């Protein structure tokens, strides 16, 4: 089940080692390095580097959880419990933490406590109800912890290995090696199908690769697990845009904006969609929102100027063009537009 190292892994991992040597005070690098050591079976060294990452950034959740999983892998149950309990105390409504604690208790034969945590996981995250039903743990309103169901749940400690494949996959995608990236991300997804980010990343790679139907499937899987993942809706919108299905693109971009109202870029993209559909009033509104968030958002301002011009709102168009030329005096396109309406 653990990943076997191959030349691609080695290449990427050698790079991380070099980076860690160059920047020993980057918590993220320490966490990646620890993950690599864990994958190689060097558990004690992995522990040291996870601890370093946490020392550098005490709020670094990923590293904290990884350390917990490492302790589970090392069967140091008390240490693992201590970590997950303290995290659950900090975030009492985080279903995932209760889920992990439930599995930890199952592994240590504490069935009652496990059942209580499973109930809490379902209470705080409705997706776990489906999850436990599928695994046969939640049946007709009661919890069944038979050995078969338990063994299905116990794969949680593989989470860091899934993260490793996810990391390698993203690294390959950055290098433009999309086919290999897909393979790695599928391994991550296979090890932990309940982690929305693995589906989202796989969807993104399919999108870059141009395999749009698969990209849509993966984004939808991610959104089913985490309906609050706003960028998932934005990505769906881009994919539908590329497929020329702008009606769906608009629907999803609207959802993305609703979930991330502070992202100027999403308001800008929503404005473009309204503009393409000739809904100019709505487009203007979205551009104004984008500019309220980021007054230096030049493209939004140019679009706004052009839209005012279309509406024959000359004064407002001139005002926007002048603002742009104050920032980029060399913009000939905008200068010409301003001259035409002055």
């Amino acid at each position, binding site marked *: 089940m653990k990943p076997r190292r191959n030349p691609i892994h080695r290449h990427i991992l050698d790079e991380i080692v070099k980076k860690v040597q160059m920047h020993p005070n980057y918590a993220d690098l320490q966490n990646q390095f620890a993950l690599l050591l864990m994958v190689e079976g060097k558990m004690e060294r992995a522990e040291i580097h996870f601890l370093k990452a946490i020392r550098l950034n005490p709020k670094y959740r990923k590293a904290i959880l990884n350390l917990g999983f490492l302790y589970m892998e090392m069967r140091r149950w008390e240490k693992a419990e201590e970590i997950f309990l303290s995290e659950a105390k900090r975030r009492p409504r985080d279903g995932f933490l209760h889920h992990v604690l439930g599995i930890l208790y199952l592994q240590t034969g504490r069935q009652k406590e496990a059942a209580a945590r499973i109930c809490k996981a379902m209470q705080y995250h409705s997706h776990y109800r489906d999850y436990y039903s599928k695994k046969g743990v939640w049946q007709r309103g009661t919890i069944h912890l038979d050995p078969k169901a338990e063994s299905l749940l116990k794969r949680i400690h593989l989470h860091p290995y899934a993260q490793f494949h996810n990391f390698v996959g993203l690294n390959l*995608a*950055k*290098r*433009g090696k999309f086919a290999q990236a897909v393979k790695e991300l599928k391994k991550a997804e296979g090890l932990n199908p309940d982690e929305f980010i693995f589906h989202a990343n796989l969807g993104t790679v399919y*999108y*870059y690769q*141009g395999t749009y139907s698969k990209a849509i499937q993966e984004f939808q899987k991610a959104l089913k697990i985490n309906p609050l993942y706003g960028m998932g809706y934005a990505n769906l919108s*881009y*994919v539908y*845009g*590329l497929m*020329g299905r*702008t009606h769906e*693109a608009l629907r999803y971009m609207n959802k993305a904006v609703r979930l991330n109202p502070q992202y100027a870029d999403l308001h*800008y*993209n929503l404005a*473009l*969609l309204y*503009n*393409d559909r000739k809904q100019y009033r709505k487009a203007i509104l979205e551009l104004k929102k984008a500019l309220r968030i980021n007054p230096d958002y*030049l*493209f*939004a301002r*140019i*679009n706004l100027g*052009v839209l005012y011009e279309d509406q024959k709102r000359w004064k407002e168009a001139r005002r926007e063009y002048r603002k742009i030329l104050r920032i*980029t005096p*060399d*913009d000939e*396109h905008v200068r010409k537009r301003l001259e035409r309406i002055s």
Partner: protein
Amino acid sequence: MLREDFVIQANIRRMLTRTDIDASQMDFGTVRGVVYIQGTFQVSRFDPSWDSDKVKDFTMNTLYSLEKKIRRIPGVSDVIFQLNNWKKEKGHWFHVKVTKKEENK
């Protein structure tokens, strides 16, 4: 020709990930088929053994190729580069030294 700015944007977004460009310091926008590219232009993938002239040549070729690819997107009528480290004059790209003030922007 159909000019759907959102579709052009989505195409550019995807295109930038499929090239050797470090898009993290760049912004792009589309206004009625006119594509704007702003920021600092850098390549993300090159042979570490290359000297700075070779990297510059490679970056320049990447710029030419990017412009060509963007112009090929249906609906694109023009591409405007507003880069702080490269300038185009009479059809040729020239590297410009970035001043500290510009870097801090």
